[in-house]
């Protein structure tokens, strides 16, 4: 019994170290100035090229575009998914399983495949190279995650709260704003987080539909990986991670501000 516990601890700690060390090595790489082959640690550290890259106008443009795309994708995803997830989570109806399967399809069919097909259509209708076109494609791939999360939240919530409010004389708008929305808010935050992260990390979808007109952080990063310039790539990777984290922390703070902790549904 005790032996099993020790093995469990060992496996878990190994996994934890394996999970964290990549991020640490990325940070070391971003601050290294010289790091020739046999050395295990850089022979010279510097923040110079970090500062230089951070101040470059291309990075500013890429971060702005990435954030815009991610925000628009999040809003579009939530608007589309919220009612559908409510239907799948609360009501039983013919075609419910089909709806669940359809919402899972973007996970199943490769993003590159769907995007190449849509590319022909978007060229024809003039959506290629536009922000709207890219947001549409990002939204397709954010849907499954947001749908799953919100569906479970609606399942847990049940119908009774809404019915009770309606019985007490609340109109549909009142029920939505005073009962439904506060109750599903934690799910909304989780779904928004996923949508945001998925849009933020898209590469091939943005590249194909954006056609070089929209510059995002992943688009800036990839050529440097291809060219083997890992220094630059590591700096962009850190920007990538920390911009996403900062945006998400901000998003959560804003939501908490509007809906005080007490409103949150405790799981």
């Amino acid at each position, binding site marked *: 019994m005790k032996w099993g*516990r020790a*093995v*469990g*601890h060992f*496996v*878990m700690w190994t*996994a*934890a170290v*394996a*999970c*964290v060390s*990549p*991020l640490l*090595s*990325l940070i070391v790489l971003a601050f290294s100035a010289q790091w020739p*082959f*046999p*050395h*295990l640690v850089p022979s010279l550290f510097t923040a110079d090229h970090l500062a230089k890259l951070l101040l470059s106008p291309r990075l500013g443009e890429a971060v702005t575009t990435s954030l815009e795309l991610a925000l628009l994708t999040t809003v579009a995803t939530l608007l589309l998914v919220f*009612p*559908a997830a*409510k*239907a799948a989570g609360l009501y039983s109806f013919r*075609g*419910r*399983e089909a*709806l669940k399967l359809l919402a899972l399809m973007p*996970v*199943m*069919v*490769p*993003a*590159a*495949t*769907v995007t*190449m*097909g*849509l590319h*022909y*259509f978007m060229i024809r209708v003039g959506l290629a190279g536009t922000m709207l076109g890219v947001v*549409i494609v990002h*939204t*397709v791939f954010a*849907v499954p995650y947001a749908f799953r999360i919100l569906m479970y939240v609606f399942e847990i919530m049940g119908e009774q709260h809404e019915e009770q409010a309606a019985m007490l004389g609340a109109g549909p708008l009142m029920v939505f704003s005073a009962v439904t929305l506060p109750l599903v808010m934690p799910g909304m935050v989780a779904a928004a987080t996923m949508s945001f*992260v998925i849009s*933020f*990390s898209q*590469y*091939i979808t943005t590249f*194909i539909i954006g056609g070089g007109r929209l510059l995002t952080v*992943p688009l800036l*990063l*990839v050529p440097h*990986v291809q060219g083997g310039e*890992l220094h630059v*790539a*590591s700096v962009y*990777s850190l920007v990538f*991670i920390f911009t*996403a984290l900062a945006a998400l922390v901000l998003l959560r703070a804003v939501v908490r501000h509007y809906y005080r902790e007490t409103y949150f549904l405790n799981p």
Partner: protein
Amino acid sequence: MKAASKPYLLAAPLVLFLTLTFGLSFGYEISGLTLRHFLAVLWNRDFVVSLVATLSVAAVATLVSNVGGAALAFAMLKARVGGEWVRHILQLPVIMPHLVVTVVVFHIFAQTGVLARLTWWLGFIDDPNQFPLMVFDHFAIGIMLVYLYKQIPFVAMVCFDSLRGISHRFGDVGENLGATPWQVATRVYLPLLKPTLMATALITFAFAFGAFEVPFLLGTPLWRTLPVEAYLLHINIDPDAQARSMAINVIISAISLGLALVYSSALRVVSHVRHSDGERP
């Protein structure tokens, strides 16, 4: 009050959006293609190599990440710590974009990478070229490492959550009746985990099968995965190449659709069995 059409009205926008995007995408790819195009693609040796390689990489990544993830979840259960810190650490790889993980794999596993330096210090190699090729290699080790880094913690987290829901009691009963820890794991918890593992296996397989960036950046020049092959033909200005790209994409979509259907019917069987189990006294 509750009209029968309500769920349909609620679901309509999403259904319309997805059928339109998928329909237009698939429609544009299949229109203009004839049987001749498909035969040309299927007869091509490069395509067959691509297909086999893509499916093999996805299968190996799925097998290793699900076995590893389930084992990690058992270890967490055995260590009896549901601590928040483990969750936070396991969440890190899930959140890390695979592009960033690709950079890290390059940095650690390339022939001049951190691991090669470590083996040099330990005296195993004298020269970077003696370090085994793990990036751009024919066996897709580099590609696989990215998938495993992201997927093992993902599978572990999902399995751990459902194991915790199952509670210790079943395992304790098994142990009291004299089962070894291995028997408890394989005879008690594994069957209970089956629906969870089916879902995670589907997700991990679909991801490894359809990923673009990772094989695009870390793949060998000898063969390409299907999405990368389709993309390189897509950006080719030769109209014949474009048609081949579309044909490959249609084949990819067919495989994905088949996978989804197999999964949904398998899930129905499992949930049916579970329900009938639950009704037993």
